[in-house]
């Protein structure tokens, strides 16, 4: 009886995919967009990204050391949070901004709620919204190098408020927006780079189109019904501008803060699309992805609760029978 040979309950084999590998894929998929941000905005963007990643990893490590928990920075989730946060900051950010953001993301949103898997909202977005409210001046300063004007979306918003969207659209170069040669936060400007990353995630089986697809489709439908302009130029400017692509593929799909049920994913995606539309069309600001996703995160427990599927082979109870019983 000296060798009990690791007796355990079945199954005795496991797939290769681990949490760490998933995070690794997300990091790889974020690199094209992050790389383009550095190329587009210069060395300041690189420093902001590095500070953000560094702060997040360090904060998680220190917190776990201080409260004497197992150190889990090896799962790379803090790197993903840091990278996403950095990509959501303007390239002009002062260097303390990513540090404060990283602290808020990891300590307040993630660790205080129990660490990985327990945070009820996306840590990077939580921190971005915190910074937007607390330091609006720094968060909305996009003037760097060649980019002296407003972001495409705020230009559109001003035009909408002035009642002349068509002229503003004529001044926008949608090609530049798709490639990413516009002002904005570090990681959101290039639609192409983000879509390349999204393809990587989809091919690796990390995400699928249920959330991003229903998000984007419902957003477009919202614009077609309630938008100030129904032209294809306006729609494509709305799609390629701002944080929509980055949000739809990389932040709305965050496992922890999105629904686990299949139908819940569609509902969640549609909710995000509609909320983003409301914020962008009816709100005071041109942007609304972050707030839409944060709000969506808060609804996830309710969505999950009402979308538990019936198990295989369980028939829907006939309604008539119930009514008879009640009567």
């Amino acid at each position: 009886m000296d060798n009990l040979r690791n007796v355990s309950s079945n199954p005795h084999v496991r797939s290769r995919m681990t949490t760490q590998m998933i995070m690794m894929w997300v990091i790889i998929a974020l690199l094209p967009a992050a790389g383009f941000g550095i190329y587009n905005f210069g060395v300041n963007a690189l420093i902001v990204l590095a500070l953000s990643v560094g702060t997040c990893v360090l904060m998680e490590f220190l917190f776990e050391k201080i409260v004497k928990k197992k150190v889990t920075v090896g799962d790379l989730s803090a790197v993903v949070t840091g990278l996403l946060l950095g990509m959501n900051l303007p390239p002009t950010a002062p260097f303390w901004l990513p540090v404060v953001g990283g602290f808020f993301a990891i300590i307040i949103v993630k660790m205080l709620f129990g660490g990985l898997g327990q945070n009820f909202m996306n840590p990077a977005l939580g921190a971005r919204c915190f910074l937007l409210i607390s330091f609006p001046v720094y968060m909305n300063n996009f003037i760097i190098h060649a980019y002296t004007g407003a972001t495409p979306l705020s230009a559109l918003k001003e035009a909408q408020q002035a009642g002349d969207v068509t002229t503003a659209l004529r001044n926008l170069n949608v090609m530049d927006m798709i490639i990413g040669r516009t002002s904005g936060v570090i990681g959101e400007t290039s639609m192409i780079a983000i879509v390349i990353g999204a393809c990587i995630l989809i091919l690796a089986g990390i995400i699928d189109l249920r959330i991003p697809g229903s998000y984007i489709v419902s957003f477009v439908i919202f614009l077609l019904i309630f938008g100030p302009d129904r032209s294809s130029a306006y729609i494509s400017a709305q799609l390629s501008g701002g944080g929509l692509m980055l949000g739809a593929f990389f932040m709305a799909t965050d496992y922890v803060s999105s629904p686990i049920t299949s139908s819940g994913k569609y509902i969640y995606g549609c909710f995000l699309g509609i909320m983003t539309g409301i914020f962008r069309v009816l709100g005071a600001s041109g942007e609304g992805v972050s707030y839409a996703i944060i709000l969506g995160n808060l609804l996830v427990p309710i969505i999950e609760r009402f979308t538990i599927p019936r198990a295989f082979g369980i028939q829907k109870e006939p309604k008539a029978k119930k009514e008879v019983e009640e009567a």
Partner: protein
Amino acid sequence: MPRATFPGGVHPYEGKELTMDKPMKTILPKGDMVYPVSQHIGAPAKPVVAVGDRVLTGQLIAEAGGFVSAPVYATVSGKVKAIEPRRLATGAMCNSIIVENDGLYEEVEWPRMKPVDEMTTEEKIEAIRNAGVVGMGGAGFPTAVKLAPKEPDKIEYVIANCAECEPYLTSDYRRMIEEPELVIGGLKIAVSLFPNAQGIIAIEDNKPEAIRKMTELTADEEKITVKALQTKYPQGGERMIIYACTGRSINSSMLPADAGCIVDNTDTLAAIYRAVTEGKPLMERIVTITGDAIVDPCNYKVRIGMNYRELIDDAGGFVTEPAKIISGGPMMGFAIFDLDVPTTKTASAMTCLTKDAVAEIEPSACINCAKCVEVCPERLIPKDLADAVEHNDEERFVRQYGVECIECGSCSYICPARRQLAQLIKGMRKIQLGKRAAAAKK
């Protein structure tokens, strides 16, 4: 046409190439034979021999202990040495008849059987019952009981479960390749029990040779068709194979017969054939001895009751000391710590692995990735069920259909956080099934 399958499922490493192309070996036991009285679901069999008796090959040594039960037969000749509890591959202790093998293999006189065409349905079922045939895919449900549903007219399909979705196992495959006539013959007998039934031989498409052979041999059979299924675990699960073949779905409180189906495993059909045409009891089965720790992995035609250690020794023993020994395959099998266990009617394989994937990585926090939800063939949310078990929240477990779990282990297999999902769910499920049975008795 899309290949027949079910939603969900996983694709573990198949490992079938180790034994797939090697012919079956017939092996005679040398040491003592152990016959547990419970090799099936239902009442244990009652021993009808005493210590010191001499028994012959094919002699009844324990009779059925009730309606849902099955008799046990000696598979060698020799003296009954003891009747005592022995450990089974499942880890449980079970009262067993131990026979000292005298190496003579003297047989009883086999009964003379009527030609199958002249037998009535009752006679056929009686022959299957007397032969002690049980579901040999693992569950061990007495086949005679399964073949006598309340309304035989309503059975439309008899499905030969030749999917063999469990990784590493090739015993059903070898049976189909080398003795297809037994499987087809068994299926024909099973189909003949039901006036409105047709037979379906369902095979996963990673076995093209078996599909080809079966299609060829059943070309003239009007009532039998061969269906290729997508290769995916747990395709051979009873509810999954019914869905793949007929589009009908059943739940935990239904029997396949409720969907007009009867499902029998490959080896079970072979045993049915022997029982009805030759009057021979269930005495042998095919066992796959496999895994990267085995020198010469192979399929054996084994006399039931033979010790596993003899099989491993014949397969050349171990290359290196295995980290894990599993009775059955890696998805559904039982890990064992002692090789001194007998083969039983339901023992399909012994898988010896040099690497233990379970011990390698510690479970970590769930990240809500929904992979368990996507692979669950029962459309459950394994993550929620496991959480409910950890919080001892029975109400939530039942509300979220925890009882419907088929214990296939796909959720544990896929979980990137390496949570022991299936293990948690299984424990609670047993408690709830017990409660359900108790409530039904009242």
